Each structure stands twice: as C-alpha cells, then as structure tokens.
C-alpha cells in the first residue's frame, strides 16, 4: 500500500475504531434483548425485572417455578401440541408443493417465470392482517375457520415462498450439463433426476422445510383470526398472555423457543456449508 500522510493515518484509525465501536453496539442491540430473557425466566418473583437477589446471585432468587407452570398448565400443553401438529402438516404440504414448483421454476423452459414467481412469493409480502382478514371471510364459507385443516392450509401458503427461495437458490448454481450428462449416458429422465438433482437440492429442501416450519410455528395473526379455543398455538397463547396478564411463564416459554431457534440456526448453517461444498462454491457467498 502507498504511504499515506500521517494525518490520514489518524483519521483512518479514528474511523476504524468508531466503526468497530458502532458495529459492536449494533450487535449488542441485536442480541442483548434476547439474552436478557433467559435469566429473567428463572426469576423466583413474578416480575419481568431483575431483583436484588438475582444480581447478587443469591440462589433463592432463582427458581424453576415458571417452567413448572408450563408443564402443569393444560392450556400451555395443548398449545405446544397444536403448534407442532399445525407446523408439521403445513411443512409437509409446503415442502412437497414448493419443491415440485421450484424444480419447474428453475427450468430454463419455464414460461411466465417472472409473473409466476411474483405470485408465489407474494404470501411473504402481503401483510398478515390482510391475509388473516381475507382468510376469515373466505374460509368460514367452507367451514375451515376454527379447524386444524384451515390453519394447516393457511400456514402452508405462508411457508411456500421460503421453500421456493431456498430451493431455487440451491438450484441456481447447479450445472445443468450434469443432468444432461446423465441423460446422454443413457439414464432415464427420472433416474437422472433422482440421482443427480435430488442430492443437490436436498439441503435446500431441508432448509426450506425448516423455514416453512418456523413460519408456521411463529405465526400468530392468522391464528388469532382463524383458530378456536381448541386450536390455540404457542404464539397465540403468548399473545394473549402479553395482552392480559404478564407473567414470567411467558419468559420461560420464550427461553425454550430461543433454544429451538439456536438448534435450527446451527442445523441450517451446517446444511448451507454442505450445500456450498456440493455445488462447488467455497466459503460464504
């Protein structure tokens, strides 16, 4: 590098340190609110704030009572069960329909690609309140409101864009000649699809499915409008808890949800790296 005048060096350094400071402050802003919840969920008092005893690490100020609350409360248990049921079924539908469509969409022969893409991705963009209101009007005509089927259909639609995005992304680096090489070496189209394309999109399918699951698992607006008492989900339960009676049980649930997100995040990171390796890309893209 060319020698810079000394006053540049000073400004350069200042710039460097203030950038570093700024970046770390933003990182703290991102992560601290989430971390704060975890110790608070072990609070022995029914408050959302640190007690004196917690700060001095007095073991009596910590307790598992709020976790115990979840396990002994029928409504929470039902919500957990419902969240998984709705999440799993909508993930299956979204993944199957999404994978087929993504393969079609990444074909160079796909007609009206741009318009179709725009439609398929729109559930991600249209505000949930509009989706929820519309579904309430429409689904009640088919007796789908207040039913598991209705929620599964709704959540599938919301999860589909994520499946499409992740799979088309894995296919974007895919070297099509591999597929044709398979064809020309005598394999049937189906055979070469299963042998060549499937292994490549598999990480995309799995991460798309995870996105679809978490979308359903976290969704609350549609649930607010469509679900009856029998279909309450975790976020729905949290929503009404936060509106009505603020209670550290919610913090305990939140902590468990954070643990789930960490697991998902790590899995995805592993998948992404593997996908990059498979597609011959290096490191971070």
């Amino acid at each position, binding site marked *: 590098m060319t020698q810079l005048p000394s006053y540049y060096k000073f400004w350069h350094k200042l710039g460097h340190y203030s950038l570093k400071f700024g970046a770390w402050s933003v990182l703290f802003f991102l992560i601290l609110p989430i971390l*704060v919840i975890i110790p608070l969920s072990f609070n022995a008092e029914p408050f959302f704030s640190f007690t004196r005893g917690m700060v001095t690490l007095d073991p009596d100020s910590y307790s598992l009572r709020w976790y115990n609350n979840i396990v002994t409360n029928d409504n929470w248990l039902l919500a957990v069960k419902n969240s998984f049921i709705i999440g799993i079924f909508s993930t299956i539908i979204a993944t199957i329909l*999404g994978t087929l469509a993504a393969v079609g969409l990444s074909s160079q022969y796909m*007609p009206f690609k741009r318009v*179709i893409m725009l439609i398929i991705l729109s559930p991600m963009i*249209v505000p949930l309140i509009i989706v929820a209101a519309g579904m309430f009007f*429409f689904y009640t005509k088919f007796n789908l409101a207040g039913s598991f089927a209705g929620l599964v259909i709704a959540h599938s639609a919301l999860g589909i864009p994520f499946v499409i995005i992740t799979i088309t992304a894995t296919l974007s680096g895919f070297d099509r000649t591999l597929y044709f090489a398979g064809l020309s070496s005598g394999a049937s189209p189906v055979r070469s699809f299963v042998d060549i394309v499937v292994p490549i999109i598999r990480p995309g399918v799995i991460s798309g499915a995870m996105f679809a699951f978490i979308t359903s698992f976290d969704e609350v607006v549609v649930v607010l409008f469509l679900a009856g008492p029998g279909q309450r989900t975790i976020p729905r339960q949290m929503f009404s808890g936060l509106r009505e009676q603020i209670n550290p049980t919610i913090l305990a649930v939140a902590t468990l949800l954070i643990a789930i*997100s*960490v697991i998902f995040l790590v899995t995805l990171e592993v998948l992404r790296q593997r996908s990059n390796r498979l597609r011959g890309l290096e490191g971070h*893209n």
Partner: protein
Amino acid sequence: MSDSSVNKANAVNNDADAMSAQGYALSKKEMGFARREIRRHKLLAFSLVVPLLLFLAFAFIAPIGSMLHQGFYNPVVNDLVPETLSTLKEWDGKAQPNDIVLNAMAKDLKRLALTRDSGKFSAEINRYLPGSSSVIKSSARKLKRAEDADLADNGAQLLLAANDAWSKPKIWRSIQQAGNIYTDRNYLTALDLERNQSGEIIVRESAQVYMKLYTKTLKLALIITLLCLLFGYPLAYYLANAPSKKANLLMILVMLPFWTSLLVRTTAWIALLQTNGVINTLLLSVGIISEPLELLYTEFSTIVAMTHILLPFMILPLYSVMKGVDPSYFRAAMSMGARPIGAFIQVYFPATLPGLSAGALLVFIISVGYYITPALVGGTDGQMISNIIAFHMQQSNNWSLAAALGSLLLVLILALYWTYDKFIGASNIKLG
C-alpha cells in the same frame, strides 16, 4: 405479457440457433423436432408448478379476493327490511315519508325485535348515521309489545311515538343508502371521503381518521427503515471486511434474532421497557433518573422494537453486496489522493446501493403492514393501519370497512412489491 411471449419466441429460436451454432447443421425436420422437444420441456416445467398455483389460488388468492369483495358488498340491510325498502322507492327524499313507509317500518321493526335481529339492523344504520342505533333499538323494544292489528292500523303513529327521529328525513335516507347491496361507501370512508345529499363525493366532515393513520404508518415505517439503515450499514460493512472466520461467527449473532420468534423478541422489549422493567430499574439504581420513564406503550417503543425485529432484513442484503465489492477500489481511490470520506461517497457507497435499496425496500414493505408488535407495545400512540383493521375486524365488527382499509393497504404494498421486483427482483430476497 406481450413482452414475455416475445421472449418466449426468442428463447425457442435461440435454442435452435444455439444448437446449430454448436456445429450441428439442422434440417427442417430436426428443427421441428427441437421445437416440439422444447414445448414438451415447457409443459413439463409448467405442470410441476400447477399444483402449487392451484393450491395458492384457493388458500391465498381467493381469500384476498373475498376481502376486496367484502368491501363493496353488504346485503345485510336489504335482507332484513325488504318491505320498508321497497316502499321507500317512491319517497322523494325530502320530508317525512308517507304512512305506508312508516307502517312497513313499524312492522319490520317488530319482526326484527322478535327474531332478535334489531341489533344487526341498527348496527348497519348506525354506520351511516351515528347515533341512530339507540333510536332503532329503543323503538324496536317498544314496538315488540304492540299488537299486530294495532300495528296494521296505526303503525305510523306508534313509530313516531316511539321516537321523534322517525319524523326526520335523515334516518330514512340512511336506511335507503344502507339498503344498497353494492356500495362504494366503505372505500370512501377509508379515504376519509363521503357522499353529500346530492351524491357528490366530498371530504368527510366529521373526524378525518384514516388518512392521518396512513400518513402516520408511512412515517413510522420510514423512521424504522432509516434507523435500520443507520444501524445496519456500519455493521454490515464491519462484517463484510472482517476475516471470514470471525465474520461467520458474528453472522450467527445477526441470524439468531432473525430465527427467534417474533413474540419472543416482542416479549423481550416489554421486559426491557416496562415501568418496572430492566432499563428503568437500571437507570434508577445508577441514579440517572429519579422516577421511572414511560417507555412502553408509546410510539418510541414501537419504533425501537420494530427496528430490532427488522434489522436483519437490512443487514443480510447489505452484507452480501458488500462482500462482492472489491476493497482495493476503495484503497486505490485513497492512494490516488482522495480523502477517505470522499472515496467512500464516490466509490464505495454507490457500489453498495443495490444491497441498500433491497434492504430498505424490504424493511419498509414489512413495516408498513406490521401488526403484532405495535399491538403489543404500541399503546394508543404507536398504533398503525394494521391495528385499526384488526380493530374493525374484532372490536367494532365493521368488516366491510376493515376490508376496504385492507384493500387500500394491499394496493400500497403491491405497488411497493412491484417496485421491488422491478429493481431488485422478487426472487432475490435474502434469507441468510
């Protein structure tokens, strides 16, 4: 659409051309074969997408269509008082209608009171003429006890005796208007407009609520977008220029909030900001403040929580664009004597614009339609347009108005989405 069919034709020719360019001399027959083959591929590709499109048509598009319809369509009054409405057709619209109309109304009201539908009727009329709900309900309550024979003879007198408001044309005009099955009224209301007595569209005289709320929503969304930019840009820059191992590790800190439930993050802000929350307790114990600050349930808390929630959507596209910008340009510019700031503005910043606009548009689009966070931390000040839609859906049960407000919001969002697609491409949305 015509564009895409041209492209399609080109694609066919290009493929055939490409094949011949590769050194194959194609006969006419072979060209025909190639075209058929391409058509077959197209059909195959399209048929893979069809199930999804059908599913979305039912699960997603039709519901939105039925919302648009709900904004125009309201048969309730027409179904409830058909007789009164048909007698009202002859009315000149000026003075008190004649006894035939009044008799029909009295009869209808008694019937409605007995079938417990008077509330439905009064709620509809009340939307046209605020205050008329109590007139209708108390009249219905009185007429419920009247004998049928008595009603037939002097229903008009009984009605007028029940409430004086029936002698004024106002309420009748409202019933007439509410009797229309299709109406643009809800859309007008959503735009703070109304029709005057001669049917011209004018600016609504009473409260100007919704335009103010739309403006406020856009203002909040803009503030949040700018804050995300302000926070996201330096962090993305720092991450993009950090050694890749460190960047990958720090990226997890960005992705964790992204993957954490929205409600968890909102809960966190409630814990931090409430009167006895973490921030107030901290500030009090350090002695910076002597009384807890009012942080939660304000516009401020809405902005902070939403900035936190949407920040990753800004960082991800910025980061991926910045990774692609070669830092040596920047250095080269400096070594040629440009000041760092000048070099940054002239060289680096323009190169990051694609990521910046992608992130900013996405954050803006998402925040315009946000519901949950303002509902939970916004109090009365921090409410956005989605919250008033939810209010009309769940509290005031004015579904047609909710649908009209929702349709306007949808138009706004689709315009933004179209812009996004035009400049960035919808399929380029970053998920990490």
